[in-house]
């Protein structure tokens, strides 16, 4: 860009400048617009960056500094906040809890979702449409409506306040979108390869696991990312179904508890340190995989 500006600026002092300007009518407008659009784009970018950066800075301040000098830089790096958040706030524990649940819930969602979607997409049988729309309708249900009956259901089979219970609930509530998305994806896969495999003598199961699943990899990756982010950020389901033991909480829940405690104890430094700790893995994963994450999350919206 720098190399382009010099030759463009030179003719402006020329006698022929007005003529040239008329000739390239859209150009000045483009330049004004460029400044204008950059301005607006930067304004919003700063609106995203500033609050996040400010919380990161605040996490290094003492609680007194946070209240009295919100706009100043930390006087000294107060690492004690991080020690507090890790030990008293149990952020590391919540983190491991969440990972422990999600290893099973995401794998289960993907396996069951892919199985159902594959059958719905590639096999004709009575009831196919009913099941498909049954899953699709689930995307519209407001989760509040089911919370209490769900609580009772898990209580009846003694799965309330257990990770097993949470895992199966996560799977069940992730299925509508997963099935909906993957059904569309399996439909787009070419039939030729499947037919060739059948000629070679592959059965239904081998066809699915050895031919169709590998071909569906891009769709599976996109929807896995979608489910990982969705389940990582779950708030209401663990709040209701995992309420009894605070130390078993998922990460979102644990942060909310920390925020509540901070209300009594007034240790906002530790709260912000805990928030930053919870943000770090997400941030790293986001920077590494941002292309896939953006594609995965928005692919869901494009039907």
């Amino acid at each position, binding site marked *: 860009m720098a190399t382009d500006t010099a030759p463009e600026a030179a003719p402006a002092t020329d006698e022929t400048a007005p003529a040239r300007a008329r000739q390239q*009518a*859209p*150009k000045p*407008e*483009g*330049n004004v*617009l460029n400044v204008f659009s950059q301005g*607006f*784009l930067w304004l*919003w*970018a700063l609106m*995203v960056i500033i*609050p*996040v950066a400010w*919380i990161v800075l605040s996490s290094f301040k003492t609680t007194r500094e946070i209240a009295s000098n*919100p*706009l100043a830089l930390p006087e000294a790096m107060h690492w004690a906040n991080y020690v507090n958040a890790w030990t008293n706030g149990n952020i590391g524990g919540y983190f491991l809890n969440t990972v422990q649940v999600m290893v099973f819930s995401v794998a289960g969602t993907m396996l*069951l979702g892919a*199985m*159902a979607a594959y*059958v719905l997409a590639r*096999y004709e*049988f009575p009831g196919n449409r009913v*099941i498909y729309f*049954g899953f699709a309708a*689930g995307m*519209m*249900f*407001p989760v*509040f*409506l*089911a919370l*209490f*009956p*769900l609580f*009772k259901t898990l209580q009846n089979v003694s799965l309330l306040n257990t990770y097993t219970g949470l895992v*199966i609930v996560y799977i*069940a509530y992730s*299925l509508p979108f997963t099935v909906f998305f993957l059904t569309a994806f399996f439909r787009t896969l070419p039939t030729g390869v499947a037919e060739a495999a*059948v000629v070679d003598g592959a*059965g239904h*199961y081998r066809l699915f696991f050895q031919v169709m699943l590998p071909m569906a990899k891009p769709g599976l990756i996109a929807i896995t990312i979608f489910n990982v982010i969705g389940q990582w*950020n779950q*708030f*209401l389901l663990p709040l209701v179904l995992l309420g009894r033991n605070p130390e078993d909480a998922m*990460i*979102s829940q644990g942060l*909310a508890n920390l*925020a509540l405690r901070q209300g009594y104890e007034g240790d*906002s430094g530790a709260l912000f340190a805990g*928030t930053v700790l*919870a943000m770090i893995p997400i*941030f790293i*994963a986001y920077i590494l995989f*941002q292309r896939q*994450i953006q594609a995965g*999350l*928005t692919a869901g*919206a*494009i039907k």
Partner: protein
Amino acid sequence: MKHGRYPFILSFLALPVGLYAWLVILPFAQAFQISLTDWSGSSNSFEYIGFDNYVNLFKDERLVLPALRHTGIILVVLPVVTIALGLFFAFMLNLGGRVRRGRIEGVRGARFHKIVYFFPQVLSVAIIGILWKQVYAPENFGGLITGALTAVGLPAPVNGFLADTRFVLAAVIGVLVWSAVGFYLVFFSSAMASIPRDLYEAAVIDGAGRGPMFFRITLPLLWDSVQTAWIYLSIVALDVFVLIYMMTPERGGPDAASEVVGGVIWKYAFNHGEQAFASALGVVLFFAALSLAVVSLRFGRRERIEF
């Protein structure tokens, strides 16, 4: 391949359909049933009372009516503002640059902007709640906006933005927009990328400015995406609660000024022990979501333009 077809279908569907029916469909069906009773949720005795809960919903001036009003406001403001900003920023990123040799360029650093804008989308509501609660905090708790306003000599609400009935709802909607814009920027941006460039280049030759270009070319071709975005944001708007749970005083206050339908369902179900009443409100919410989707699909439909 006919051989073993049905056993295979059954073996693949049994587990997902069974789990879904048991943990999703059945609880929702039960909620409909509960809404027609007087069940408190804790005892085992209840009677069917018909639609009394539904009638009483609209007499509850303390919580339900303000909640319906606020959810209604969010339902209008959130999609309009988010879609407008999303479209505006996406257009700027893709076509806001200079015209060079008859070609329109995107602005520089488009990739960077996309990364930054999208970031709130991957943050959990808990983190966003903690972050913005502090941004909106009163000055003596070190709030960012109140601190900045005072620093430049402007008046700021003494108790911060969230403890002030005038600002609390707008403050929450602001956070919702903040976290959603990036998603719709990326969404609209990928839709815009599929519009052929020569359409714009033809418009440049005809001397069209960016305004007409946006309204005559981009918007009509993006109509399907806008409609999808509208449905998604409407569902988000109806489900708003966790942010209010995290940020506002009394989880919907002060003085019910940020009470929303989801929050009222929560309060009646888990704090007041009025399960049947809460379920009735949930059913209303469900039908609201359903009719919104149907209406926007029906009336939003326009002739599809192939390109």
